């Protein structure tokens, strides 16, 4: 018998606390698979933002540090500079990374910190119950935008992968999703590449993961995944916005 799919060992044998159909689970799986495959479990340090992903350490068996909400990339900067030999990644939501953490994010990216970022964009504040995020789409209803997000009042959804790609310090900036088998494969490749870039000392690598939050979107899991495909991807296009090759660095 040939094994086709098995959860990686790096993933502990406990159930996620995520809601049914939440793509945080998918992101966790791919990160764990990558760590397994690259054999970096002992090198890895996870810096975890505050959001639904805050319990990552319960699921992925790597040394872990909890960062204050939004400050993941400042914390990770401290970690990486103190332990340049270790592989440091942050795992952050869109509220965390793009709202309160905007300054830390832009500056870490601009400094070209040799870090990997897994950025979960679900157009909402999941953990706190569905408030508007910087990524919330126009017209989308949130608990703090009960009449829908409006440009004049609330601004435009921010495309982080594109914005960060404009900064010199960024080595890799890409956006992935999980709405088709192909996308899942691409997502896996992207996450792996992001870690490899760090291993090769190439600078800041950033993977934006479009993610369903069925609970706060008030949708069934399938419906939610469909929304990712039909509403999010048109606004947040998948693809790579910047990719530095080794020769650029050397």
């Amino acid at each position: 018998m040939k094994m086709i799919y098995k959860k990686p060992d790096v993933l502990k044998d406990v159930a996620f606390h995520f809601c049914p159909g939440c793509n945080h689970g998918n992101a966790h799986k791919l990160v764990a698979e990558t760590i397994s495959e690259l054999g970096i479990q002992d090198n890895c340090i996870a810096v975890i933002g505050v959001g639904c992903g805050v319990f990552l350490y319960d699921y992925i068996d790597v040394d872990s540090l909890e960062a204050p909400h939004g400050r993941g990339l400042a914390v990770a900067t401290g970690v990486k500079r103190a332990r340049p030999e270790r592989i440091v990644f942050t795992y952050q939501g869109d509220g965390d990374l793009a709202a309160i953490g905007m300054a830390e994010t832009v500056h870490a990216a601009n400094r070209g910190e040799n870090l990997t970022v897994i950025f979960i964009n679900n157009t909402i504040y999941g953990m706190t119950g569905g408030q508007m995020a910087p990524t919330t789409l126009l017209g989308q209803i949130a608990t703090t935008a009960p009449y829908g997000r409006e440009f004049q009042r609330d601004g435009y959804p921010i495309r982080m992968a594109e914005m960060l790609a404009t900064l010199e310090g960024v080595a890799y900036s890409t956006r992935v999703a999980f709405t088709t088998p192909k996308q899942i494969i691409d997502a896996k490749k992207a996450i792996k590449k992001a870690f490899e870039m760090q291993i090769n000392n190439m600078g800041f690598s950033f993977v934006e993961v479009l993610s369903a939050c069925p609970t706060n979107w008030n949708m069934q899991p399938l419906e939610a995944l469909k929304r990712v495909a039909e509403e999010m991807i048109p606004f947040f296009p998948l693809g790579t916005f910047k990719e530095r090759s080794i020769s650029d660095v050397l």
Partner: protein
Amino acid sequence: MTKNKKLVINFNRCKGCQLCVSFCNKKALALGKKINKLGYRCIVLENEDACVSCGLCAEICPDAVIEVWRI
């Protein structure tokens, strides 16, 4: 843990989201009746013969419920 030849389904981790169902081109999966410890109805491999062990159900499953083997 429900053990089949092709799929190993971790009964108490499934959340019944049915993303696997929709990813299975072979329509081999369906929502079961039994409620697990988490309070959800777990997926079952309803039509084992139809299953081609492609692994797509396992790839999409957010909760790492499914293990896939090719015989």
